[in-house]
Structure formats: structure tokens, C-alpha cells
């Protein structure tokens, strides 16, 4: 059972990926060891014999959106995995809801009308898709949820995720410990109302609440946009000047914009305060170039590919985990490990210096992956 084949573009991570791909559920290898309090819970295994069918399979994929670089890469990992399993597929039908949950419900109805054997869904919101996905399950069609799960446990067979809680727990704990439990920080969450952003923000706030001398001086949603991250941090700098001891961003998408705002405001490299945030190569490149204290934990888009792997396993009647947390390495800048958060990959090894800044990390598609030219062949 191979749920993930990570190739982060560097030998060290390739090795880690190989280790991971043969490991079992709850993955906790040396290369991706979570801090104990941040580790995801062990998953229950699901019996899928009742869903077993003879190939070729017809799978419907109700995608939420392709509205940013992460989502595009996620989508490509799905297509890449569909191509990998092309010999077992009759059709791999894709719909796209453009971020609108009500359209996604209609998309799922249209997929059901095309006699799919399994529904793969990346829910636009966790709650809104619950009723329709429940209806799909009650019609005997298994559901695999990717990136976000739906609300009710019985409404999906398996769920591939990268754990927002774990990501935020690692980055917030690291920042608090790096500041030795004292300082003024700014929080830059993603998109207001989006469940990953809210989950990460709430987790981070819970962590910071454990450190009474950490003062949150501003919280600004950024929509996961580098441009917003930059303009918002520029405005915050106008108000607070050099009074900022740390910046917690739930992703490097806006985190990179924040770093650029500090540099544009005349901060020297060594004066840029510690930052958090993975996903975007630009963030890793900035941390490498300027040497400020940094932790990056990707919300790996490889979960899309893992979800397709799970889908195939279900249709082949193999047991699958109820929740499969695709692990991501913890990248800490040199010399900045803290008491409980240790980097599992060195920043200099992880940053993709041969790739552009907008390159999304952790896709697992291969070194030569280019989101602009990527194509995949599968029956559709």
C-alpha cells in the first residue's frame, strides 16, 4: 500500500519519502517526527470489502477550486496519481466548483448521474457538503475526502489530509519557544471563514495562550496572498515600528509578503523578526538568503495524490485508514531548533534553489514538475 511518494526535489527528502511510502498509518519516522504534543492521533482502519469492484473503475472527482498556486499543485497531484492508475480506470471525471459549495453540490449530483463507482471530493467547505456527501454514501457509493473532511464521520470512508492542527501546533510552539515565551507578535492567518485558516488560527491562539508573556498585538487575515501579506504587514509596521518580535503566518504564501514588507521598510536581514510559514518556495528562499529565524511546515499538496491512491485501494477492497495524515517535514533554519521543535530537514537542503519563488513545495510529483506546463494522461 503506497499512499505517498514524496520527492521534494532533494536527495535527503527523497530518502525520507521512500521511508514514508512504505510506512504504515500514523506515520512517525525520524525524518518527519512530530513534536509529541503536535502529533496527529492514530487512525482507525476501515474495512472496504463491500465496495470492492472489478476494474476498470469510474471515479468522479468534485474539486473545490483551482484559485491559487497551492490548489493548482494539489489538482496536479490528483491528475498525476490518476495517470499512475490509468490502467485501472474506465473514466476519471473531474468537475470544478470554483470555490462555491452550492455549485459543488450540483457537480456531485451530475457525477452521480454518470454512474461513478467512487466519489473523490475536496470539499469547498467542511459543513456545506455534508448532506449531499451523506446521500452519496447512502446510495452505496464510497466517498474519499481530500484536504478537508466533511462534518459527519459516516459520510466518508477515508480522508486524506495534512493536518492543519499539527501544522499550526508546530509553528506556534516553535515561535513561542524561540522567543523564550516573551514578546509581541503578529498573526497572519489565511482567508477569513475558510476552515483550514480558522483551524490553524485557533490552534495557534491556544498555543500562544500557554505563554502569558506572549502578546498578540495584531491579527490580520491575508487571503493567503503574498501581495496582501506584504501590504498588510507594511501597514502594521507603520503602526508598531520595530516593536514586533515575531510573525506567525499559517503559510509562506502571505509569510513571504510579510518578510518582503520588513525588507522594504529598511530592516536589515539580521533584524527581520522570526517568521513561520511553509508551502511557497519564495518563503524558503527568503529565509535561506536573509538568515532570519524561521520554521516552515508545508500543508503538502501531495494529499491529492494520496487520496487517489486511497480511492483505488477502496475499490480493490483493501483496508484503508479513516484518516490518513500525509506527513510533511519540519524545516527549521540553521541553529534555531527549540526545546520541543526540532527540524527534520535542513533549510539549505529543502529550499528549491533551482525553482522559481512561486513554486509550491511538497507536491511529490518529481523534480522536473512545472505547474505551468504540467499535463497528465488518464481516461476522462
Amino acid at each position, binding site marked *: 500500500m503506497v499512499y505517498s511518494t514524496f520527492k521534494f526535489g532533494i536527495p535527503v527528502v527523497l530518502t525520507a519519502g521512500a521511508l514514508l511510502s512504505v510506512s504504515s498509518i500514523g506515520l512517525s519516522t525520524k525524518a518527519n517526527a512530530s513534536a509529541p504534543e503536535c502529533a496527529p492521533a492514530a487512525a482507525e482502519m476501515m474495512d472496504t470489502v463491500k465496495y470492492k469492484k472489478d476494474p476498470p473503475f469510474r471515479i468522479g472527482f468534485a474539486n473545490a477550486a483551482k484559485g491559487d498556486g497551492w490548489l493548482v499543485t494539489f489538482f496536479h497531484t490528483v491528475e498525476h496519481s490518476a495517470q499512475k492508475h490509468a490502467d485501472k480506470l474506465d473514466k476519471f*471525471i473531474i468537475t*470544478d*466548483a*470554483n470555490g462555491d459549495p452550492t455549485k459543488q453540490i450540483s*457537480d456531485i449530483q451530475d457525477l452521480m448521474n454518470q454512474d461513478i463507482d467512487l466519489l473523490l471530493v475536496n470539499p469547498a467547505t467542511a459543513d*456545506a457538503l*455534508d448532506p449531499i456527501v451523506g446521500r452519496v454514501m447512502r446510495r452505496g457509493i464510497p466517498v474519499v475526502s481530500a484536504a478537508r473532511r466533511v462534518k459527519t464521520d459516516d459520510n466518508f470512508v477515508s480522508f486524506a489530509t495534512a493536518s492543519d492542527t499539527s501544522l499550526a501546533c508546530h509553528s506556534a510552539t516553535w515561535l513561542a519557544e524561540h522567543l523564550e515565551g516573551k514578546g509581541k507578535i503578529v498573526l497572519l492567518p489565511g482567508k477569513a*471563514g475558510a476552515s483550514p485558516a480558522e483551524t490553524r488560527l485557533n490552534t495557534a491562539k491556544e498555543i500562544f495562550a500557554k505563554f502569558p508573556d506572549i502578546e498578540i498585538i495584531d491579527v490580520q487575515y491575508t487571503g493567503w496572498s503574498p501581495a496582501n501579506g506584504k501590504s498588510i504587514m507594511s501597514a502594521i509596521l507603520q503602526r508598531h515600528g520595530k516593536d514586533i518580535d515575531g510573525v506567525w503566518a499559517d503559510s509562506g504564501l502571505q509569510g513571504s509578503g510579510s518578510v518582503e514588507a520588513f525588507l522594504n521598510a529598511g530592516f536589515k536581514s539580521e533584524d527581520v523578526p522570526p517568521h513561520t510559514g511553509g508551502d511557497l518556495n519564495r518563503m524558503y528562499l527568503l529565509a535561506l538568503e536573509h538568515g532570519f529565524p524561521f520554521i516552515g511546515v508545508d500543508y503538502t499538496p501531495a494529499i491529492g495524490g494520496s487520496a487517489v491512491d486511497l480511492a483505488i485501494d477502496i475499490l480493490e477492497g483493501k483496508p484503508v485508514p479513516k484518516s490518513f495524515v500525509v506527513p510533511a517535514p519540519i524545516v527549521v533554519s540553521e541553529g534555531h531548533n527549540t526545546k520541543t521543535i526540532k527540524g527534520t530537514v535542513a533549510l539549505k537542503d529543502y529550499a528549491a534553489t533551482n525553482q522559481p519563488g512561486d513554486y509550491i513545495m511538497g507536491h511529490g510529483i518529481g523534480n522536473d514538475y512545472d505547474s505551468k506546463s504540467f499535463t497528465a494522461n488518464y481516461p476522462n
Partner: protein
Amino acid sequence: MSGLTFRIKRTEPAIMMVIALTLLIIIIGFFVNERFGTIRNFLNLFEQMAPLGFLALGQTFAVLVGGIDLSIGAVVTASNVLLAGTVSGNDAMMMPALILVLAFGAAFGFMNGWITVATGVHPLIVTLGTASVLQGLVLLYTLQPTGSVPFWFEEFAYGRVFGFPISGFVMLLCFLAVGLFLKYSQTGRAVYAVGGNPEAARLNGIRNNRITILAYAASGFFAALAGAYFVSRTGVGDPRVGDPYTLASITPVIVGGCLLGGGRGRITGVLLGVFMISLLNNLLNYINISTFIQWVIQGLIIIIAVAVYVDRRKKP
């Protein structure tokens, strides 16, 4: 009789264009996917087009009086969150909350209309402003999906009577009621008069301000109905659910032949516009091509529809 002939001449090209495009979509659908032409798909389609139908009906009122309602998306969202939040799984609260929400929608629309006539500010600005206020209030109330409704309320969105979707049936009833109201009632005809020539309407004893306020109240009511429908479909109140629907509500109204300046347009055309847009979305799911193509095609259709209208007006 000559007036009727004149009206048919003026209106038919827009409707004929919609019918022609709809037939084209259906023919393409039959060729590209054997599942497209099934009864099940068309029944699904009637279910799926209900919210756009409600919203287009509301927007039609605003457009017919020569305005536009850009608060529709925010009213959808607020009604959606208000309904799910008020009920929160309490069966007994379902019907009172539903009535409350529909009344809220109408009252909000009423306020839009009142501000428009009282200040003389263009409704585009007024409704843009009130939308922003309302959306902000909703996000202050909740950032995440909230509340819940009893399981039986899902039947509004998913239920079938003799195989026909309840929501589609309710939508068709609304179109019929509004169509009859606009055509046969004095107030309905006044809606056209106010939008077509406000000064002439005033000289004919029509209270323009009242009619305008009524039109916006109707728009708010139908937006709230769509908000309730979305609660039924998703089971929760979502503080972002209405985002795409403000502009979406305008498309079928334009495509269906309503003049943006007001005073002209047929409910039949709007219904056909809703059907065509919904059918197009549906077809693209069967063709398995990018959703962005849908935007391109919708944009082209709007331009073509308006071009047909403009061309028509230039002729004597």
C-alpha cells in the same frame, strides 16, 4: 392589438436567441455524453436551477423599475446564516425562523428601496453600500459555517414529489405568480411604467416611490428565499454562501431580454435565461472541461444577448 404585436416584435428576438442557444446546448449535450439526455439529469437540473431562479426573479423586479440590486448576495448570506443560527437544530423554531428570515429579506429590500428614493442616490451605490454593511455584520457574527436545521428541511432542496423536485416546483410556482402579478395586477403594470418612463408614470397617478420600494422589497424577499434554500441544501449557515450570486443573478435577467434601463422584460425570458445558464453549467460537467470555459461562454452569451437587444433598438 397593434401594441401587442409591437411588444412581441420587441421582445421575441431576445427570447428566440435564448431558445436557440438552449437548443444548441441540448444538442451538443446529447452528442457528447449519453448520460446528459437522461430524465434524471433534467430533474437534477430543475433542482439545481431553483436558487438562481429565485434570485433572478428578485433581480428582475429591481431591473424593471430601472435599478439594480447588488445586495442580493449579502442578503442570501445573511438569511442563510440567520436561519441556520436561529434554528440551531431546534425543530420547533424552524417555521417561525423561516418566516422571520423571509420577512428580514423583504425588510432589508424595503430599506434599500427607501434609501434609494429618499436620497436619490443611484441604487447601484446604495445596494453596494448596504451589501457591504450586511456582509460585514455577518462576518462579525460568524467566520465559519454555523447552526443547523432539522433533517426534514433538506427535503426542500432534495425532496421529490412524483419524481419532480420540490424546489424546482416552488421556483416554477414563483415564476408563475410573479408573471401573473406583473401582467394582470395594477401594481405589476405600474412596475413597468415606473421603470419605462417615471415622469409619465407619475403623471398617470402612480406613486413611483412606493413601487420602487416594493420592487426592492420583492428582491430582498426572493434573496432570502434563496438563502433558505441554501440552508436546506447544505444544512448550515455559511457566511460566504452568497458571494457568487449577486452578479450571477443579473446574467439571466439580461440574457432573458430585460432592459437594464428598466421598463421592459418578460418573466418567460428570465425563466429561459435561468434554464439556459443552468443547462450550460450542467453540460460542462458532462463534457469534462475546465470550469473557466464556462465563464468565457457566459460572458460571450451576455454580450451576444445585449448586442441583439441594442441592434433591435436601433431599428425603427
